[in-house]
């Protein structure tokens, strides 16, 4: 029977029955033990220390660069006339894009009743927050006089008579990204409280008990609490869904409200959002495949989860590809010679290599996911997802730099070259990201235990089981 097959390989689809989301016959206690084992087991595998060590070093390099930049000025970057938005903005958009998958999984897939999201949403949300931290760093130091950062916010002053300019898309960005970071943090933390309570109840020493005890806010799992908690979760999901759309929409406004050829095109908002989901999911897969191997979570984060994510990667990749096509078509159809030049220049100008890296990584390589083998083999999917991440970085590079380096005034045309500081800061931002993520894996519940338990079939009880064990699948 098909159902028997599904117990071992839950990527097999049998219409009419829903494949199990958790393998290995795990029950409630089994789920708790599997996840708690990461924090309270016999210590992390050696590779964990290696990764943490390298990332910490890279993070140190990042902070060194930031210090150098603050002392010297933003001239240490390669940004110069006419490319005033160089790598820092590329990195910013790249990281913000990565930061979209978490909220997408926890909010949008929640509203769409995609129960498979429960195994991966926690780690994805954590990844979101860390990515937004990395993203915020770049525009944060790009303002030059970092110590005046509070001018970005409408703080009343008695003498200066100054307010931020609310008609500027860059200010919308400040509001969007900071709102997104705050709401994602609340959402993440709120979802984690019941699981931190689980850790509290299994803590082995006093420090753990105190830390987890305070963080869990005295959560007991009372039905009355759950009732309000679930309502708050729905509301936060409903708020986070348009929020997650708005963030990359507003980032795209930064570009698209201008008149720079190649930037001003109305499809930018949905196109940026699709690209963000695309890169975010690729990053989730890149992180989850090794994490589930190292921490023994294969029964919770199953092949089916990975396959579903890969399908979403393929779908959003195709959307991005379609948007590339529409942009090209309208550049021709609209008849604006500058616009036409901008697009021809992208593909065949001096940055042709960046453009074709982008197209092959974002559109061509993900097509391998049409094959089930590629969707389910961990090595292949990580490989493809790394390509996608590279491609999405280059997409932002292509949009930002090719358009700026060849805009209206040929006398100002110039070829952009990054400085070593640019490159070191990009690498260092990965260090910051991985440092935070490795620490998270070790010390916080990596899988949303309470949510996984909520979608486990009631194996001990027959009554009403058909009504309870429905799982919507993507």
């Amino acid at each position, binding site marked *: 029977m098909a159902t028997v097959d599904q117990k071992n390989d839950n990527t097999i*689809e*049998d*219409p*009419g029955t*829903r494949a199990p989301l958790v393998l290995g016959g795990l029950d409630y206690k089994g789920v708790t033990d599997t996840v708690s084992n990461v924090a309270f087991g016999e210590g992390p595998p050696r590779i964990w220390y290696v990764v943490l060590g390298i990332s910490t070093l890279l993070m140190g390099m990042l902070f060194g660069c930031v210090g150098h930049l603050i002392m010297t000025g933003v001239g240490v970057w390669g940004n110069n006339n006419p490319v005033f938005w160089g790598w820092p903005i590329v990195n910013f958009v790249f990281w913000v894009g990565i930061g979209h998958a978490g909220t997408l999984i926890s909010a949008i897939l929640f*509203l769409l*009743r995609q129960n498979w999201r429960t195994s991966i949403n926690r780690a994805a949300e954590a990844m979101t927050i860390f990515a937004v931290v990395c993203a915020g760093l770049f525009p944060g130091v790009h303002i030059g006089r970092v110590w005046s950062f509070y001018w970005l916010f409408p703080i009343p002053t008695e003498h200066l008579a100054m307010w931020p300019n609310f008609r500027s*898309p860059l200010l919308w960005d400040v509001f969007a990204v900071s709102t997104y970071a705050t709401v994602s943090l609340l959402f993440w933390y709120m979802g984690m409280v019941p699981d931190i309570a689980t850790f509290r109840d299994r803590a082995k020493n006093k420090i753990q008990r105190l830390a987890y005890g305070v963080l869990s806010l005295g959560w007991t799992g009372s039905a009355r609490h759950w009732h309000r908690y679930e309502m708050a979760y729905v509301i936060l999901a409903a708020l986070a869904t*348009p929020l997650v*759309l708005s963030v990359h*929409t507003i980032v795209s*406004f930064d570009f*698209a*409200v*201008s*008149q720079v050829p190649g930037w*001003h*095109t*109305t*499809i*930018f*908002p*949905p196109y940026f959002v699709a690209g963000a989901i695309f890169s975010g999911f690729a990053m989730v897969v890149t992180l989850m495949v090794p994490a589930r191997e190292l921490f023994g979570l294969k029964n919770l984060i199953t092949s089916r989860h990975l396959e579903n994510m890969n399908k979403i990667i393929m779908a959003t990749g*195709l*959307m991005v590809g*379609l*948007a590339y096509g*529409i*942009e090209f078509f*309208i550049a*021709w*159809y*609209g*008849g*604006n010679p500058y616009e036409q030049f901008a697009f021809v220049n992208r593909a065949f100008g001096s940055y042709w290599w960046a453009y074709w890296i982008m197209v092959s990584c974002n559109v061509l390589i993900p097509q391998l996911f*049409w094959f089930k083998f590629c969707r389910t083999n961990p090595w292949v999917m990580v490989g493809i997802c790394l390509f996608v991440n590279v491609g999405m970085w280059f997409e932002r590079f292509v949009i930002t730099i090719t358009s700026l380096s060849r805009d209206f005034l040929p006398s100002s045309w110039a070829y952009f070259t990054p400085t070593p500081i640019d490159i070191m800061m990009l690498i260092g931002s990965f260090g910051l990201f991985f440092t935070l993520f490795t620490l998270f894996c070790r010390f916080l519940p990596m899988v949303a235990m309470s949510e996984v338990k909520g979608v486990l079939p009631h194996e001990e009880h027959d009554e009403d089981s*058909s*009504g309870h064990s*429905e799982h*919507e*699948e*993507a």
Partner: protein
Amino acid sequence: MIRSFGFGAVMVVAAILGFALSGNYSISDTDSHGWFKRFLFSYHVSFCFVLSISVGCLFVVLILNLTRAGWGIVIRRLAEIISSVILPLLILFLPIFLITVFGGRSDLGSTLYIWNNPEFLNSNEIMNHKLDFLSPGWFGLRVLIYFTILGMMAFFFMGRSVKQDDSGAKSISTGMQRASAPCMILFAFTVVFASFDLEMSLAPRWFSTMFPVYFFAGATMGAFATLILVSNLLQNRGILADDITEDHYHDMAKLSFAFVFFWGYVAFSQFMLIWYANIPEETFWFRYRLDWQKGWAIVSIMLLFGHLFIPFLGIMSRSVRRNRQYLFGASIFLLFFHWLDHYWLVMPQFGAVTSGHITVDSNEAPGIMAFFLDLILGVGICGIYAGLIFWRAGDKPLIPVSDPRLVESLNFKNP
């Protein structure tokens, strides 16, 4: 079926007579066939409206298959039937097709599409490079391709689904899911270019990459509103009374809500970017849609409230989403504004001036009388559309009776 055809035909004839008798709609002296032009624009509005609903339903079919959704099996057949009239809708497109393709680059040929007007082309240098793209022959061929692709896709899914009614083979479900992925890509490409050709090229100098998304967002919202309406009408007659429960209404209402919001998002983004960048070659399109003196701004404001704010607040609450009678009214409301959305896209182009590269003028928004005629025509076309749907429905079961996920769908409880 015969009744709705008859009703539709009567209404259409009444509208034609109304336009013919109600006076002179010509916007300049060279227009000798003013009322006919006015009629054709109105006809195009309603045609695009019904077409978009079918296209939206095709999307619903595809996405339900693609995501192996369980809840929506009971409404999938309705969506299949509505989408399968895309090819028969060519009959309704015939007047426009014949005039545009066989009228050629002439006064007659440009009754609807101004890019067929030689005077317009001569005075607009910017049109030179797209002369071949927006030419009668090419346009006709492309439209035929769109209809064929979308229509064949709808027939395919309908056919497989009906076949499963007899055999109940699970492989059919798997096969439909497999097919839906490439079909989705084909669908996306087709809808993109169809929306460019059918509606965006009415203002041939204007362009917006967001336009297909706008069309799609409205179409999908219209599709869900139609599904709510159709299920309601059927249940009022006791058909499918136990199969479609308030949980299904809840989901359809949620999805309508989602697409109301998505439409608002797309519409706002499109407006915002054009408004902010303030490039004349784009702003003129919005400029006369936001013209208070000519009245189009009122239509825009109506859309803002009727297509976004009112439904946003109106179908936000859970209890409302589970109330069938309420949703009946809400779906009619949504469909009216979806129609008005197409009206807003198409009708201001009626007054586009054919010559001169400085002025692009639009006519005034219609008075009560003309708007009433437009509505009558719309109702008439909906009547014919309903007739086509009844004809396609034939005696097929209205739910996929042997679908392996049907049980799950029937027992579905919305959390």
